[in-house]
């Protein structure tokens, strides 16, 4: 089974204990700790057999109930053999920093800025980490679960009509 070979190849190069492998969803999902994620992705990109040369997307997640609430999800893709892999890592709330992938993939530049903008995840080594979609003066990270969707400063909405 091709997934098994990928997992074994990863486990040969990295310590067996740091992986949590999940094959229940549509693609192979590997959870690693944040210290090694840069090496893992570099290995996945540079290895001859695995060769995941395309970073499809990266996004952030927020699970407030976990002890490592902020999550980061990378989707990698190998065009020639049509294989996809999903790498996840989780970060604590007080120091949500992880190494940047801009040296591996140029596309990670804006994707990491967007993740910083929405979740507050800091990327060490990023050339230009500032807000990209929201206004620069915004002082909170809107996609975290504790913040509401609506504008808090509106005074003209009558809550009776909105079921609150």
């Amino acid at each position: 089974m091709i997934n098994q070979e990928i997992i074994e190849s990863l486990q040969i190069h990295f310590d067996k204990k740091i992986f949590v492998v999940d094959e229940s969803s549509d693609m192979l999902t590997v959870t690693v700790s944040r210290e090694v994620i840069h090496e893992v992705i570099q290995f996945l990109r540079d290895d001859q057999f695995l060769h995941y040369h395309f970073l499809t997307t990266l996004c952030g997640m927020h699970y407030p109930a976990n002890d490592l609430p902020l999550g980061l999800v990378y989707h990698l893709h190998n065009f020639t053999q049509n294989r996809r892999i999903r790498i996840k890592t989780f970060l604590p709330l007080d120091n949500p920093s992880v190494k940047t992938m801009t040296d591996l993939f140029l596309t990670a530049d804006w994707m990491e800025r967007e993740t910083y903008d929405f979740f507050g995840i800091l990327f060490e080594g990023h050339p230009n980490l500032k807000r990209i979609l929201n206004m620069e003066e915004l002082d909170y990270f809107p996609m975290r679960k504790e913040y509401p969707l609506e504008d808090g400063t509106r005074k003209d909405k009558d809550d009776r009509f909105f079921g609150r």
Partner: protein
Amino acid sequence: MQNAKYKIVQPPEGYSAPGFFATSLDRVIGLARENSIWPLPFATSCCGVEFMALMGATYDLARFGAERLSFSPRQADLLMVMGTIAKKMSPVVLQVYTQMAEPRWVLAMGACASSGGIFDTYSVLQGIDRIVPVDVYVPGCPPRPEQVIQGFMKIQELVENEPLRRRYSPEYKELLESYGIK
């Protein structure tokens, strides 16, 4: 002179006799202005594409006199705000509005420009009438080109009937002050 095949603009009420036609000045100016409105298409999103369809051959806005779209606010009469205005964009709308010369009108096209539309979020301005005074609202998501033409014709009505000294009146100055526009 009225050719029955083509409908042309009706002259205003006045007294006519061989060799002259007497009417009031603001009627004539209103007539001239309403049939030569130069819009500024401030297109941000999906309504902008409907505006492109409006300027096409099927729904031709140019036959109402809006042949020349002016992207420079200095030469535009009508600011057509089409699409969602985010809070990041609102200083830009305000600046474009202040750069326009009097007399100027504003048409808010689409639900997002009128009231924020379906986007009741932290980053979307809930209607441009929070920052500029709006004359006509055209709701819809996006409004059909016929609806926009109706909105445009309402602007034409406003332009036709506007008194000459309206922009210097204290009510208008009060209106602009309430928005903080100098």
